[in-house]
């Protein structure tokens, strides 16, 4: 998971008083004139769970249709960690992520413009989503500060002060040409104790959204998503939802989570936000990727998820299976000749007589963290697992048996021992009308 902890250590922020902020004007004006917000997507809702808030839908994007709910693998630097895009396609992936921050550094806007966008650049003809780069900027560069203009940081090479504004971010994402682009938001750790700062970040994210909408050159082919901020304060989240929904972006993201906050808080925020968001728009919870978090967030009404965890953990030799995560570097797997996940139909686990590779735990143990191929194989399995999980989730919602699906899912992980079920999951699901402990 992405680490927000670093954010808490940020130094004092410089907020130039001279910088004109039309925030007050905006909230008091009767109905501000806003740029019309065309949408390059259509969102078809198919089914809604009769108990929970889970929904099954299809998102039609410029590079193909994406069944929701969906997990999106993260190809940070225009490559999914050693996999070829045909291997990624094989897992069924229709939409993956690139990072604006990384692509802005390498190869840079000039190259992206010359080549004609990130799809052509990396040879991926399905959909791309890019984040705004603000998160990486603040979390990776210790010397960054957020001001009303944008994110100030020192160039890592020569130390000269630089400024990344919402306009830069959108311009970069326009050059990347991703199908979904994200606004630049003021990222702050949810665990921050500074309430004033959280409120400021929320207000600023709203103002920056307006700048992003203004700067967005291709709304007819790239969908700009807003990002709901407001920390763990539900009141702030509500205000933010209200402000941002009014701006009518094609999709809506819930940001600032996955930062080490308690899971109960996380669920409350998602539940509160989805309650206020329009039904006819996709909802994306950023940076969430553990299977348990995803299936619960789906029950709370979220549609899209991304996380580097499944691919990163694969490189460390961890396989995601129904029963949780297996650390295949452990000595006990050296002589285990069963497939990574019995019954999984990814190219690695499928037996050879069904056209698979018949990879065993023992072989992954043998190559993991030693040969790049070990990472390739396990990454394929993990991505396939996550996507297959989402296919199953969607099917369960369509057939209106999502509560039963959830019960089985948790029973698999905890081997049927209900006393071990996490409190936060039980509580969150009770909040949307289902009892996880029921038989």
């Amino acid at each position, binding site marked *: 998971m992405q680490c927000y902890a670093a954010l808490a250590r940020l130094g004092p922020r410089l907020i130039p008083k001279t910088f004109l902020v039309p925030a007050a004007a905006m909230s008091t004006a009767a109905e501000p004139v806003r740029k019309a917000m065309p949408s390059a997507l259509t969102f078809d809702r198919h089914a809604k769970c009769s108990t929970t808030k889970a929904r099954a839908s299809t998102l039609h994007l410029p590079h193909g249709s994406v069944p929701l709910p969906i997990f999106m693998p993260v190809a940070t630097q225009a490559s999914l960690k050693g996999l070829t895009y045909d291997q990624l396609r094989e897992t069924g992936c229709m939409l993956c992520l690139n990072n604006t921050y990384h692509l*802005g*550094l*390498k190869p840079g806007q000039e190259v992206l413009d010359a080549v004609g966008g990130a799809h052509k*650049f990396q040879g991926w003809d399905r959909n791309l989503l890019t984040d705004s780069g603000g998160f990486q900027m603040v979390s*990776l560069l210790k010397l960054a500060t957020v001001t009303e203009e944008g994110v100030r*940081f020192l160039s890592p*090479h020569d130390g000269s002060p630089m400024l990344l504004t919402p306009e830069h971010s959108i311009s970069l994402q326009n050059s990347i040409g991703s199908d979904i682009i994200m606004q630049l938001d003021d990222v702050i750790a949810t665990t921050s104790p500074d309430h004033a700062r959280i409120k400021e970040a929320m207000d600023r994210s709203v103002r920056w959204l307006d700048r992003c909408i203004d700067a967005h050159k291709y709304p007819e082919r790239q969908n700009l998503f807003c990002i709901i901020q407001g920390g763990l304060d539900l009141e702030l989240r509500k205000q933010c939802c209200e402000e941002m929904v009014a701006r009518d972006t094609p999709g809506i993201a819930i940001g600032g989570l996955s930062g080490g906050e308690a899971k109960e808080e996380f669920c409350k925020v998602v539940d509160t936000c989805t309650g206020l968001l329009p039904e006819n728009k996709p909802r994306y919870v950023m940076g969430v990727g553990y299977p348990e978090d995803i299936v619960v967030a789906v029950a709370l009404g979220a549609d899209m998820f991304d996380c580097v965890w499944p691919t990163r953990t694969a490189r460390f030799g961890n396989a995601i299976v129904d029963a949780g995560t297996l650390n295949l570097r452990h000595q006990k797997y050296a002589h285990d000749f069963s497939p990574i996940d019995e019954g999984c139909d990814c190219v690695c686990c499928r037996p050879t007589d069904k056209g698979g590779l018949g990879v065993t735990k023992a072989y992954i143990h043998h190559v993991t963290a030693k040969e790049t*191929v070990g990472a390739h194989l396990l990454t394929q399995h993990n991505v396939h697992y996550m996507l297959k999980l989402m296919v199953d989730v969607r099917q369960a919602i369509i057939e209106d048996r999502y509560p039963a699906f959830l019960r089985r899912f948790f029973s698999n992980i905890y081997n049927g021992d209900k006393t071990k079920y996490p409190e936060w999951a039980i509580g969150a699901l009770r909040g949307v009308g289902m009892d996880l402990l029921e038989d």
Partner: protein
Amino acid sequence: MDSEPSPSHEMTFSILGSAAPALAPRVGTLALAGRQAIATPNFVPLTSRGAVPHISHDMVRKETSINSLYIGLEDFIERKHPAPLYNVPAAAHESSLRKFICAQDDATLLLGPRRFPAIACPPNNTETSIAISTSVGFRQLEAHRYIEAIQKLKPDIAIGLADMVLGRAPGLKRRGKMIDRTHAYTRDALEHLYGESVADENKSKTKYFAPVLPLDNTQQSLYLDDLESEFRDYISGLALYESASLGFIPEGLGSLPRLLLSDPSSPHEILREISLGADLVTVPFLQGCSDAGIALDFAFPVPEAVQALGEPQPLGLDLWSSEHAKDVTPLVDGCECYACRKHHRAYFNHLLRAKEMAAWALLQMHNHHVVDCLLAGARESIQRGTFEEDVQAFHRAYVTELPDRTGEGPRLRGYQMPAAGPNQPRRMPKVYGRLDDLSQKFAESQSSVATPDTDAEGLEKHGFAEKI
């Protein structure tokens, strides 16, 4: 490369125009029961821990024509005996090695005691064992254990144990010892695998390639005589360690396939090895180039377009070079490999700079394809009878050295590097020293965190941010 698996249980090696004299190029087919036949001359792809480095198994099957693999036993036997691969559940006719490494059914597996190229080990070989290097340190591989490995793992071809001296030239006494030991290892192995004392149903189905030491003819003549007479019925091929050995293969062994485990420095040298009569060769520089970010770019026989250029062309393309940053042409024009069909140079330049593993995976596929084509071209050329002229034209058309390595490759593991010694350079650059927080941050940002390659002005030009 693409013939049907042969039906019989035997290995056949048929040489086209079998009257080929010694020290001349020859074309043939090596066919093993149930495996894709290998047209020779050809190259045997090298593996590391059972995998073709960087290319995952599914891509090997779908997007390369790899149908044989060289596997070093030392990659598998690092901890206490028996190693996991001996316990793979396999039917009587199945190879547990093949199952363990998930190799395709029709690929020919060649098992050697050590990786190739092997790393020189400080411990000495003994009368009954050789020193090997595993991922957890040096060990001895006993000769009887190697025989056991051949029996249990059932590779298609096993390369006999040889007492080799790596990294330095052996002295006179040592050379005598090398021959005696290798002789003894071979005699012992053949006895246990196929000897009269072994019941027919227990006789190994694995084909044994006897080693020929990288020494003079005269020194090992006794050993070679024995190979030709006493051992002849049991050996199915020869494993050579230098091209000079091709010159003194006894006539009686002339019909055996010759696997040349050598480290050619350029395609010119591969062609030379073929011209001396090598049937199977190894090409370590292939992976070396992939790791270095170099896409091989040569063809044999030389295409007219290259001939017309007049001056010698480079053998590869360094994709680290920023001149490729915006280049949307394939690595090599007209190349049909996966990497060239799907991607362009700009992407490779980016992947290398971003240290993304995909760079090496794609380059490996391309480089395998280029070497594949070189050998296919050589086979046709020999059959046409124009090999000698074609080689001369190749020498005129291309420079003789591979491009220099300019960029960093993947992180090397211990088992891929020579052992650290008192007079060896450091394996890794020093990482301690500057402990203050800021400089450490910068140092870290060099490696794990993406950092721009340019200064503030460059960033501004990139449109990334503006100077204030």
